[in-house]
C-alpha cells in the first residue's frame, strides 16, 4: 500500500520532471555535456525534494519539527517580545512622566558638607561659588525671607522644620555658621538641603546636573528585565537544540520507505542525501517562521489581555533584529543536526540494503 502511494506521488510530478529534462537538454546543446549532466542531477534532486516535502508535511517529520523547532521558538519569541515590551514601556513611562526634566548644560564646582540644624539630624549643605548657577542648574526659584542673598537658602522641606535657625557646618578650611535667609522651590530637586555661597577653592567637586537620575533608574530596571527575558529565551532553546539530532534521526527513519522508493527509481546516494537534507531544511525553516509568528501572536494576545483588564500598555513590540540571534542560532543548530542526521542515516540505510 505504501509502495503504491509512493509510486502515485512519483507519477504526480512526472510532468514537472519532463519539463526539467527538456529544458536541460535544450541548454545542453549550448552549454556542453558536463553542464547537461549537472543540470540533470539537479533536476532529479529537485524532483525528489518536492516529493519528500510532500511526504514530510504530512507525517512524523512535521510533528517532530513542530515539537523541536516551533515550540521552543514560540516560547523564546514570547520572552523576547516581552523583553522588548518591558524596555519600550519603561522608556515610554520615563519620557512621558519624567520627560520635562531635560538635562541642563553646564556643571559647577561645589563642596558638600553636612550640617546639624537644631539637633535634628543631618542636612546636606551645598557650598557653591555662585548660588545663582546652582539654582539655575536645578530649575530652582529663590524666595528671600530675611535680608539679602548672603546667607543660606533652605529647600522647602527643610524650611518647614528649620526656618529661622542658623546652620553650622565644618569643612577642612574651618567651622562656619551662617544664618538662613530664605528658601528655594526647585523643579528637579526634593528633600532637605541647604545652599550657601562659598569660595570653593581646592578640594571642590564637579557637580553636574542629574535630573535624569530617575530616567536612568527606570532604564536600568528595563534593562535588567530585558536581560532576564533574553536569558530565559536562550534557556528555552537549549533542551530542544540538544534533542534535535535525536528527533530528526527519528524523523528520517519515518520516511525511510519513501527514501528506498526514490533510491529504487535510480536516484544516486548523494542526490538522495541532498534531497532529504533540502526537504528537512525546508520544513525546519517553515516551522521556525511558524514558531516565531505564533510566539509574537501569543505575546500580543497577552498584551491585549492586559489592556482589556485595564492596564495601560503603550508598546506594540516585535522582536527586533538585535535580539534575533537566539532564533538564528537555534535554526542553524537544527539545520546542522538535520544535515548530520541525513548524512548518517541515509548512508546507513543504503549500506544496510
Amino acid at each position: 500500500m505504501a509502495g503504491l502511494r509512493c509510486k502515485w506521488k512519483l507519477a504526480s510530478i512526472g510532468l514537472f520532471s519532463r519539463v526539467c529534462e527538456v529544458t536541460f537538454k535544450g541548454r545542453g546543446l549550448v552549454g556542453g555535456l558536463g553542464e547537461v549532466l549537472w543540470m540533470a542531477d539537479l533536476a532529479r534532486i529537485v524532483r525528489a525534494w518536492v516529493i519528500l516535502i510532500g511526504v514530510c508535511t504530512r507525517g512524523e517529520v512535521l510533528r517532530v519539527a513542530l515539537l523541536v523547532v516551533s515550540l521552543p521558538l514560540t516560547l523564546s519569541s514570547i520572552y523576547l517580545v516581552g523583553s522588548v515590551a518591558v524596555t519600550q514601556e519603561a522608556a515610554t513611562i520615563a519620557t512621558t512622566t519624567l520627560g520635562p526634566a531635560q538635562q541642563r548644560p553646564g556643571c559647577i564646582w561645589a563642596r558638600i558638607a553636612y550640617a546639624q540644624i537644631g539637633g535634628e539630624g543631618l542636612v546636606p549643605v551645598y557650598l557653591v561659588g555662585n548660588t545663582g548657577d546652582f539654582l539655575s542648574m536645578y530649575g530652582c526659584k529663590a524666595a528671600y525671607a530675611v535680608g539679602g542673598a548672603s546667607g543660606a537658602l533652605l529647600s522647602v522641606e527643610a524650611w518647614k522644620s528649620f526656618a529661622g535657625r542658623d546652620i553650622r557646618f565644618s569643612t577642612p578650611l574651618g567651622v562656619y555658621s551662617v544664618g538662613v535667609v530664605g528658601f528655594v522651590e526647585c523643579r528637579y530637586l526634593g528633600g532637605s538641603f541647604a545652599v550657601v555661597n562659598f569660595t570653593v577653592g581646592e578640594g571642590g567637586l564637579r557637580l553636574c546636573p542629574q535630573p535624569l537620575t530617575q530616567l536612568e533608574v527606570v532604564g536600568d530596571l528595563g534593562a535588567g528585565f530585558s536581560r532576564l527575558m533574553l536569558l530565559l529565551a536562550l534557556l528555552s532553546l537549549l533542551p530542544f537544540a540538544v534533542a534535535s539530532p535525536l528527533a530528526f534521526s527519528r524523523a528520517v527513519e519515518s520516511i525511510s520507505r519513501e527514501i528506498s522508493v526514490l533510491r529504487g527509481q535510480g536516484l544516486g546516494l548523494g542526490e538522495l542525501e541532498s534531497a532529504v537534507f533540502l526537504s528537512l531544511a525546508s520544513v525546519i525553516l517553515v516551522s521556525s517562521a511558524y514558531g516565531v509568528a505564533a510566539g509574537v501572536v501569543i505575546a500580543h494576545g497577552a498584551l491585549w489581555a492586559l489592556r482589556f483588564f485595564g492596564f495601560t500598555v503603550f508598546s506594540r513590540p516585535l522582536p527586533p533584529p538585535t535580539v534575533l540571534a537566539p532564533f538564528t542560532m537555534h535554526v542553524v543548530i537544527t539545520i546542522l543536526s538535520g544535515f548530520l542526521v541525513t548524512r548518517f542515516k541515509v548512508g546507513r540505510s543504503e549500506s544496510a540494503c
Partner: protein
Amino acid sequence: MRVLAEVARVWGFRLHVLVFLQILLMELAVIASGSLLFGVYGFYDSIVDAGSPGAVVVTSISLAPFASVVNVGQLRERLRSVPGVEIEERVYALVRLRNSTVILVGLGEEALKSVSSSASSARQGCLLIGEDLARELGVREGVEVLVYSPYTSLPYVLRVCGLASGWPYSWMLVSDLTTARFIRGFGSSQASVAVIRSERGAAAVLEALGSGPYGKGVGERVVLAVRSAGGNFSAKLYSAYAGEALDRLGVPVEVFQALVVAVCATLAVSALMLGGFVLAARAREFAVLRYSGVSSRSLKASLVAVLLAYAALGGVLAGLILCYAPLGLRLFGFVVRPAPSPMVLAAGVVLVWGFASAGVLGGGGV
C-alpha cells in the same frame, strides 16, 4: 533485576553517555529557568532579609521596598499593648553610583554593627559598601563617592567608611538610618520597612495590627502591607513581598506559579524525544531480549528505571553546576543567582524523567 542489568548492558557505553548528557543539559535548562523565575519572585524577600523566623515585615501597599513608606510612629502606637515588641526600622532606596543603579539600605545601630566590624560604621554621612559590589564597581574603602538620589534628584557626597559583608548586604550600599532618610527624602518617623519581632510571636503582632485571621503557621515569613490614611488603618497579609507586588498589578500569585510550572513543563517536553530515540537506537537488541522471554512490561520498566537513575544523577549535577558556576543576573546591582531550591530541583528531575519515560512507554516496538 536481571532484566535491568541486561537492558543496561545492551545500551552500550556510547548510548549511556549520550543519554546522560542529554538529560543533564535538559535538566540544566529546566532547573535554571525555574530557579531564575523563582529567584526574581523572591528578589524583594532576598533584599528585605527579615532574619529570624516569626518576624513580621511591615510595608505600605507598594510595588517594591524602594517605593514603600511606613509611619513607624503610628506602628509603635498600635503595638504598645503587645509586650516585648522590637521594631527594626529600615530605609531602602535606589541610588546611582558610578553610572550604575544600586540598592542602598539604611539600618539601625545594632544591625549596622552586625553587618560590619568597622568601628566607624555607625557614623552619619558614611557609607558601607558591600564587598562584592565594591569589587564590581572598583570602589575602595576611604574614598568619597558621589551618590545621586532619584527621590530628591540631589547629589550626595559620602565617604566609604568600610565594607559590608554577608548576604544580602555584600551587593548593597549600607548606611545609618539618618543618611538613608535624607537620600530617600523621608522624615524622621518614616521608614520603608519595619521588621517587627515579639516575644509572643507573629500572631500577637498581627492581631494588634488588625490583619484579620492568621491562617499560616507562626514561623513562616510574613509580609504585612498596611494602608493608613485619614485615621483609617487597614492591613493585608502576604507570604512573600512578590505576592504584594503582584496583587498591586492584579495578578494572583497562583497564576505566576502556574506560569513557571508551565514554562518548565514545556521545556521538559523535549525529553519525549529521548525516550523514543532510545527505543529506536536499540530496537534490534530489545527485540532479541523480547524473544528470549523478557516481557514488554518488564523491559519498559527497566528502561524507565535507567532513565530515573540518570535523571536523579543529572539533577544532582545540574544543581551543583548552578550553585557553583559564576552565573547570575544583575537587578539593580544585586545578583540573582539561579541556585535551585530543593523543590525546583525535584520538579526539574521529575519533569524530565516523566517526559522521557512517556517517550519510552508511548513508543512502539518493545
